[in-house]
């Protein structure tokens, strides 16, 4: 490292660690590696669901309800040929194949996780930037956010679900709304602190236009904390979806998610535990993986918070 260039370099030294070193550190972190692998596996399962020996997850069959794992059923196709299908994880109270539902459930549950996290962060980012930058609006926005935050998340989600008829979109909205104020707070505090930095003040003095200022100086600082925040939002989204299903106001059972497979099976837990067991394992593993990923990311991207 030579001293010469540093003297000449402008004071806009961006956050130190170069991206490549960061990636290396991430991959080497065992927590991130395990979490990432599990998550990747679940994503693959979700994506390739139709080719993993599944049936239509919504096809009901009243004559073979509540069968234990391993039950074999002969399926007659329209052309008269018969095949034997083994219900690896049994069937539910409508005779649907639990294995197929769990595999397809990966799709929906992950979709919920990803969409909730990204939309909550996108909306939160915009509001947070506005609140942090446009001083006159700050007070109003933050009081509103305080109000939103004061309503316990689950209750808020319940109330939002009852707003619309229950469906995929309304459940996603219901989970997003309570997350927004948390994102806004993070973004706003970053904006406020970055504004005080000498290099940003210098840029403002130099007449840098707002969009450029945002993209150049403010946004990059929000990326790391928001990625971390995003993983935790994703993990909690999967859980909240399950809880809404449990309370009977989640995604309609036509669309399989781990949450509503479990919610449906809970009444028969004592007789047919497989309805809760298998989706439960998948759900817990995934949430665990996302949480591990989040922890690892935070330790690596945000060393100040390491260990928390």
């Amino acid at each position, binding site marked *: 490292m030579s001293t010469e260039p540093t003297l000449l370099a402008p004071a806009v030294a961006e956050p130190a660690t170069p991206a490549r070193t960061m990636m290396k550190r991430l991959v080497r972190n065992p927590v991130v590696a395990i979490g990432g692998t599990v998550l990747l596996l679940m994503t693959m399962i979700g994506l390739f669901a139709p080719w993993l020996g599944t049936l239509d997850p919504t096809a009901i069959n009243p004559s073979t309800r509540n069968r234990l794992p391993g039950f074999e059923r002969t399926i007659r196709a329209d052309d008269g040929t018969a095949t034997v299908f083994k219900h690896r994880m049994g069937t539910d109270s409508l005779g649907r194949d639990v294995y197929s539902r769990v595999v397809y459930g990966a799709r929906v549950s992950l979709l919920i996780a990803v969409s909730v996290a990204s939309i909550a962060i996108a909306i939160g980012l915009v509001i947070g930037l506005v609140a942090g930058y446009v001083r006159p609006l700050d007070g109003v926005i933050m009081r509103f956010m305080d109000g939103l935050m004061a309503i316990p998340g*689950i209750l808020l989600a319940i109330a939002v679900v009852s707003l619309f008829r229950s469906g995929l979109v309304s459940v996603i909205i219901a989970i997003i709304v309570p997350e927004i104020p948390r994102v806004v707070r993070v973004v706003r505090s970053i904006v406020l602190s970055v504004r005080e930095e000498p290099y940003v003040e210098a840029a403002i003095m130099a007449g840098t236009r707002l969009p450029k200022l945002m993209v150049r100086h403010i946004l990059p600082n929000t990326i790391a904390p928001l990625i971390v925040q995003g993983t935790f939002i994703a993990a909690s989204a999967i859980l909240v979806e399950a809880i809404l299903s449990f309370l009977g106001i989640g995604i309609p059972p036509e669309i399989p998610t781990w949450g509503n497979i*479990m919610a449906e099976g809970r009444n028969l837990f004592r007789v047919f535990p497989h309805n809760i067991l298998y989706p439960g394992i998948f759900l817990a593993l995934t949430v665990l993986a996302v949480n591990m990923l989040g922890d690892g990311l935070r330790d690596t991207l945000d060393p100040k918070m390491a260990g928390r």
Partner: protein
Amino acid sequence: MLGYILRRLLATIPVLVIVAVLVFLMLRLTPGDPAAVIAGDNANTEQIALIRNRLGLDQPILTQFLIWAGNLLRGDLGESFFFKKPIGELIIGRIEPTLSLAFATMLIAISVAIPLGVLAAYKHGSWIDRIVMGFSVLGFSVPVFVIGYALIYVFAITLGWFPVQGYQPLSGGLSGFLQRLVLPAVTLSVIYIALIARMTRASVLEVLNEDYIRTARAKGQVERKILFRHALKNAAVPIVTVVGIGIALLIGGVVVTESVYSIPGLGRLTVDAVLARDYPTIQAVILLFSGVYVGINLLIDLAYSLFDPRIRY
């Protein structure tokens, strides 16, 4: 100081007003029609319209809001559409189970989580640390109701140590009260233990690296004394914070736990009210929960300013 407290108290008012407006608007925009729910299967359109009129649901939203807000200011929460009882009375009848559950949960969580967290910090990097951290991540990853059913299956059905469900008021005898409270409280405390243990570990770790602890060590003070006298004391602030944050978590958990164990508390009142579109009750309960949340966080803030001179006011 007094001025600060007063200012903080006043600052909660707009928050609660916003909550009230939000909740009110949200519910009045829902497609559900409480009148139809109340009327039942045989009712015809005319009868439903009559009920709607009696409940005041056919008036403009603004009028409905003003009536409600006016009554609220006079301390009148209104009357439940369904239970036909004053909501204040309903809530009072439901407070004991929920408070008992919340206190028992906190008690279990704190008495388990703080020693665990301190231990993990002290044995930083050891297998004990890893197990505690592993558990705390796991605790966040399993839905409350699954934990509940698993505990019921093992401890109530298979072993028969505890009743399967129900609640007995404290006035009905201490042993019955405790017997019915243990399983729900343990169920609910899992996520809390995870949260607090994590936070305790982190803050104790941070403090252990501070200079004065090193000095104390250098002076040859007993390790246990260092841990409990210095480290934990200084780690108290972040731990208290996490308890405050956890209140929201606890409220969400109460709703589910009370449903699993059929505990007649505020959580079940909320779910029942939502499913029945009992607007005045939902409004009152959400407002109450939000008030509790805001109140507890206010107390925590005030506690900081009392105990931590670094915080300016």
